[in-house]
């Protein structure tokens, strides 16, 4: 039955090459922790992706309760954390996941760096990886404003003041990020929400797609 459905689709859209690209390849011995335990360093990239998946899922569920509004943001977070079943776990996944993803990303970056895996032909993928790192830091920065607690408010104010000190464009940059040249408030929160939930994830997915496509195209770097 499944074979028939597969054949029906394959007859029309030729999915076999796609399947081969995704799954039908060999994993070399030097990255396989089953043969060399030290190869566990190759796991960090995959674990980063896994945590990103956790972040996306828990984030999707959190928006079921969260409102990006200065009156209600904190109350909704407090409500979902204290009143809703498992709210503490789901918010915990998102909160701690943000830290874990940075740790994993750092370890992955260090692995690639110290193995010199970014050398020809993989320069492009390294640069995309660094951009991914920036996107991830941006997600962290915009994310912790959202609960609208004291930490969020004051840390964001510091961040915005840093942005303001950039020469020439500083004030415009501040206004662009905060929505208002003087107030960190309602407009800032909605902007950060939009950036955190739509703009940066879109950039993240696009970069991740290119990252993975390049890995499949170039293969994993050989043993040292």
């Amino acid at each position, binding site marked *: 039955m499944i074979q028939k459905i597969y054949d029906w689709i394959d*007859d029309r859209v030729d999915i*076999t*090459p796609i399947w*081969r*690209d995704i*799954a039908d*390849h*060999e*994993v*070399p*011995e*030097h990255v*396989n922790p*089953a*043969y060399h335990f030290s190869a566990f360093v190759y796991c960090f990239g*995959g*674990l980063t992706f896994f945590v990103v998946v956790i972040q996306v899922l828990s984030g999707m569920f959190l928006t079921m309760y969260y409102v990006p509004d*200065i009156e209600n943001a*904190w*109350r909704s977070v*407090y409500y979902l*954390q*204290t009143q809703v079943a498992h709210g503490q*776990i789901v*918010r*915990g*996944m998102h909160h*701690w996941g*943000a*830290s874990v993803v940075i740790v994993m990303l750092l370890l992955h970056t*260090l692995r690639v*760096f110290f*193995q*010199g895996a*970014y*050398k*020809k032909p993989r*320069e492009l993928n390294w*640069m995309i990886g*660094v951009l991914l790192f*920036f996107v991830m830091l941006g997600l*962290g920065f915009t994310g*912790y404003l959202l609960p*609208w*607690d*004291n*930490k*969020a*408010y*004051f*840390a964001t104010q*510091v*961040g915005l003041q840093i942005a303001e*000190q950039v*020469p020439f464009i500083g004030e415009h940059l501040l206004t662009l990020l905060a929505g208002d040249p003087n107030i*960190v408030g309602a407009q800032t929160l909605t902007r950060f929400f939009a950036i955190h939930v739509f703009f940066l994830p879109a950039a993240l997915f696009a970069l991740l797609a290119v990252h993975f496509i390049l890995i499949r195209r170039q*293969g994993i770097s*050989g*043993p*040292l």
Partner: protein
Amino acid sequence: MQRGKGMRFVGDSRISADKTSQVPKDYSEYPGRTEAFWPNFLLKEWLVGAVFLVGFLTATVVAPPPLEGIADPTAAGYIPLPDWYFLFLYQLLKYQFASGDYVLIGILVIPGLAFGALFLAPFLDNGPGRRPPQRPIAVSMMLLALIATIWLTYESAAAVDWEARKEMNKPIPPGETVEIDTSHPGYAHYEANCLACHGESMEGTAAGPTLIGIEYSAEEIADIAVNGTGNMPPGLFTGSDEELEELVDFILSVNEGGE
């Protein structure tokens, strides 16, 4: 390698099935024992992921995510602190060479150089050798940056009294208002000795935390009032022992009412 079923689409723009230059490398050219990704290796990855997930979920259950009190732009005494992964930047801006007139060095030049170098690493370190000993400059720069970042983060984190911070910024549940009995004999002492820092209705201010929902015994409250704790200096309470007793009684009564 024959791919697909060999059919052709109208206006086919795909790489033709005969063209082999785009076909990924055959991994059999690597030495040693290779393993099929699907399903053998994926199963192992799945196992690693499952173990990781169990650990992660356990951590989230054990450690509830922190939430401080609702943002209060007038809380002048609040010391802002970013998440841990921005602490190194935060700490950097504390140094003289990276602040004041030189702030551009702190916010643009140093991070710009560091991240720019990271971004362009493949072109700065463009020798053929991949082993760390073959590229001592790149590796030592990276180690230096890494140590600097860890050290800055540590310096920043070590200067913070995390416990006191947590205690001071506990969220006050919404709608939980406590009746303050101003006719209580202890209220006058509260007004005279504590109100300035702990707020008119014990809600707490930037200078002192809320006294609602505290879990101290009578002796502990009396001790704190006289000897201080954390950021609270000793000697703030100036009344007699009798007045102290009334004050403690008052604070306790408010907390019982709040339950």
